């Protein structure tokens, strides 16, 4: 989203949320990007992949995500996402 940025002031470095999960996030994104580019967008959408990477990343977020609003979305998605347990 091209939102609200580009201000000229030089803000101090802001601690990013859940920085502890950045490696697990990269592993998930790498897997997701390959799956989307090579399979899903080309017609192979019948099998979900990257669920192991996603579960590891999500567990980490559950532990480290500080924002209450985001935690709520994360937990709600877990309840409605029971179908994606296989890799």
């Amino acid at each position, binding site marked *: *989203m*091209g*939102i*609200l*940025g*580009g*201000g*000229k*002031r030089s*803000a*101090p470095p*802001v601690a*990013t*949320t*859940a920085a502890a*999960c950045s490696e697990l*996030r*990269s592993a*998930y*994104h790498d897997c*997701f*990007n390959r799956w*989307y*580019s090579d399979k*899903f*967008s*080309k*017609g192979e*959408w*019948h*099998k*979900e992949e990257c669920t192991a990477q*996603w579960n590891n*990343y999500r567990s980490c*977020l559950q532990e480290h*995500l500080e*924002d209450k*609003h*985001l935690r709520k*979305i*994360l937990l*709600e*998605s877990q309840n*409605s*996402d029971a179908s*994606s347990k296989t890799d």
Partner: protein
Amino acid sequence: MVLTYTQEHVYEHPWDRVTSAAWRKFTDPDTPTVLSHILDVHTLSRHLDPVHGVFSSTRSITVRSPSLPFPLCRLSPSPTILCLETSFVDAPCRSMEIVSKNASLKGLIEVEEKSSYRPHHQRPEQWTTFRQETSIRCKPLVSVASALAEHVEHMCAERFRQNSVKGREIIERICKYLESEAANNKLE
């Protein structure tokens, strides 16, 4: 008072490549130097409907807040703004829709961006049309004069336009990278 504007752009790349690039836009290693206001991106939910070929996902995007004019800056103590982005991709229909909204500062300003990527109507196999509608609404606070609210809306709109151009440049660059990667894979 709502300020709304739309933008359209044609990518001379096929739909699958452009939407792949759109997913990578915020997570590409080179993005932080171009979109320096993006501080953090996390995926909060994902869901695949394997029967209908529909994938949806929600991501949080933390951005550096803009420098607001006095007295609004006093109302925004946080140096960051949190946004939520929900994406739906219908693979059989070759349609990607993205809605982004700010989740913090909602008492002050509400921004909504609706974007879509679809095959170009004249060259559906080669090109992709991107459309984006942005609406910016400054909340009518008693303490804020309407002229100031209008000023903030226009200021935000200008930033959005600048960042949209940068975002398009990133997607063009990732598309070229994916194109050359696909060409190399064919040669191997």
